[in-house]
């Protein structure tokens, strides 16, 4: 069984949000619900300034506080290490939302249950790439199997010395960033 992960190379990211919007259509989300959010950081003073845009979504942590804090088992780790939510078991307590340090979960206002990136779970089973990977304009996103040493994902993680966001939080995210 694969252990799915992703790499986002910020030196190839245009901050264009094509990933955000393509994800909404793929997952049939309403306009105001985003699984991929952006955080912008600015450093320095004019004229020595730099700007960075960081796309953030569910990190599919190996040590996921959302799963541990879910009282009903609605949040769970599925095949391939993908973190999913079983709506039928969800009581809408939002513990998972507050315990996610990456702010990756959003509320479905109609069902009052949380939602988030699912790595396009159903589609990757059929061999498709997640939608954000397919559409990424700069080709900044690489998806694959972390257990396969030959995978493009592992190659790039090693070559580019990619690291997760806030590894200090101890959640062991499976999305790796290059910056």
């Amino acid at each position, binding site marked *: 069984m694969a252990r799915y992960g992703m790499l986002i190379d910020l030196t190839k990211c245009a901050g264009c949000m094509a990933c955000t919007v*393509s994800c909404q259509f793929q997952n049939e989300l309403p306009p*105001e619900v985003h699984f991929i959010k952006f955080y912008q950081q600015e450093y320095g003073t*004019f004229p020595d*300034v730099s700007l960075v845009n960081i796309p953030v979504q569910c990190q599919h942590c190996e040590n996921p506080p959302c799963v541990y804090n879910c009282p009903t088992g609605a949040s769970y780790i599925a095949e391939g290490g993908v973190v999913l939510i079983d*709506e039928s078991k969800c009581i809408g307590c939002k513990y998972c939302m507050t315990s996610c*340090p990456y702010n990756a979960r959003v509320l479905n206002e109609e*069902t009052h249950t949380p939602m988030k990136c699912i790595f396009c779970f159903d589609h990757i089973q059929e061999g498709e790439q997640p939608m954000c990977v397919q559409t990424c304009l700069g080709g900044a996103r690489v998806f694959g199997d972390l257990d396969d040493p030959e995978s493009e994902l592992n190659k790039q993680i090693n070559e580019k010395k990619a690291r997760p966001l806030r590894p200090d939080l101890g959640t062991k995210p499976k999305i790796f960033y290059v910056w």
Partner: protein
Amino acid sequence: MLQEKISRRTFLKATALAAGALSVGAVGTFSFETWKKAEAEKKDDIRVIPTLCTGCGNFCGLNVYVKNGRVWRAVGLPQHPKSKGKICARGHGLLATPYLRQRLTQPLKRTEDGNFQPISWEQAFREIGEKLQEIRKKYGPGVIAHISYAGQKTAVWYGQRLLWALGSPNTFTHAASCYAGRGVGFEHTVGGTPGTDIANARYMVYIGRNLAEGITPGDVLELAKAREKGAQIVLVDPRVNNMYQMATKWVPIRPGTDLAFVLALAHVLIKEGLYDAAFVQEYGYGFEQFAQAVEKYTPQWAEEITGVPAATIQEVARGLGKNKPRAFIHPGWHGATGTQYANSVDAARAIALVNALLGNYQKEGGLIFGKTPPLGNLNPAKYPAPEKPAIPRVDSEWPLAHDVVTAVPDKIRDGALKAIIVNRSNPVMHYNNPLYAREAYKLLELLVVVDIFMSETAELAHYVLPEVSYLERDDLVEGVGGKKPIVAMRQQAIGKIHPETKASWEIYTGIAEAAGVGKYFNFTLDEVNQAMLAPTGLSLNELKAKGTIVLNSPIVLGTPKFNTPTGKVEFYSTEFKAAGLDPIPNWKPPLVMPDVSKGEFRLINGRQAYHSHTNTTRNPYLLVLTEDYHGDRLWINRRVAERMGLKEGDWVEVRSEVATGRVQVHLTEAIHPEAVFIYAPYGSLAKNNPGRNFAFSFMTLLPYHKLDPAAGIALTQEVIVTLRKI
């Protein structure tokens, strides 16, 4: 912890897909097992239709997935050179277009009291046809004009045929507010605007061109590849734009002075012998005069004007020179060389010439003139073709330009234009000083607007004709030139949402018949498309099956051909000379300059990754991004703002010589202190546009300028503003 950024506004919910198109949470909240079971039971009918986007002028190729008769998602076509398998946020968001609540659903006629009354197509065609005949009889055919979006081929082709049939040459596009400066500058210097071989370049300079926000998806992909191979990417821009993350250097420049920067690059390349002398010798015309002219444009001279240190100018020139011919300055689009300044056309010419100094034309990693695909036309024996009218265009005082839509308000005021048909364009809002334009357009005896939304221009029209959206129609075959020419076409992905809407080609045919020129329209769209495809040997069915087809005739690199009167790169322009203009792109300052000591700023604008025009601000998916990321705030240099007592998010009144606007400020170090910046598409004045409530439109603050004599461009950044906290 990361900050919460989601916010919700009920109006967005209300405008979103009223018919319940994309329902909440089909996937994402179920377990996979539950989902799979539900999906299996549903037995979705999924069809994939290759077509073309309409989000901007690129018209990327895309596969639209239609699930149970409704648009679901889209993926870029890999063989289309603009998309290269990718489509941008706008392209995705626009998939909701057919279902938007604000769509026009039936033909409308404006009544005496200014309201609109629904009428039948028969009545609309009959009355428009009669009025056109009457106006033509009274004033002659030259008072009729057509305005469309340049890339919208069906509107351009049918609109021109209709106008020619009526006897008028006056067809206009939006170019004069977009890329016309670059077009005119390059055309009269090197014979056309080349493409860029980004993936193979080693040193690239982007001056006021921002691939990450004025997006062509395929170019972004190439840029990322080049960067990975170690290419140097230099951004010359008064603000840090989103390309920054992919670039290697930002050169902040005083807005409006790009021409001085480029002239100084030419100076260094020549002075230090870094230019390709053999190329200049073989392909250049008038190089000696140019070299003499740029002698005075030293880096020190340019530092004074641009605020860029002389050492930086030298560094960039050497970077270009040492990496030639795999080095270029991007020709630009709407930015510094497009339509922004009184010196934009000269900036475009200077950039064309620096590229010639690098000898990069028709070379790998340089600038490449593509090959145009061969497309045919209807056989005139069977389908009578109208002749090109012999009478002069109303804008013939611009001999170097193709069309000067910016001159239309004055031409109406002069009485030179009486009737205008507008298709998928919004000329009242998209050019300088919309209030001035609005008053002019009100003087027309006939204004017909074909659109899918009630735009500012449609609100003034006598007749508003509702078109089907791009996902509900076939369009004319497009040929896209490039290293490998392609043919592509937009085709219908879903059934009509509103029965009383029509495709443009049906609308033009209806108007033509009613105006007594129906004999020029005795064919269907399919028949034109078949005729266009004939020389390629492809059938219409083949093209419909694939959407985009690459023709097997790539260009051969090496020897460039310059389509100028001398057949050479004109360092000394014979056509500019003939038009009474400076044959050499010497330094000319912009039209206006802010007096910083009086608290004045130049108001600059640009594209945003998730919007194109006022039209996209009707899209709930794109508008929510504006809201969540404060995309409509006015950028101001943090230290300047703090001196003025401003904080992030404060409201200010922005005042120009013609109008005021209200906006919240964004404090940042990433902008030149002499400029304030706003993204282009906001501040719609149209009553039913949700984007109406966002910021202001920079166009409303722009004076209606006396236009530049070469290209008639809008001079969209020649405006000084002051700010007041409110």
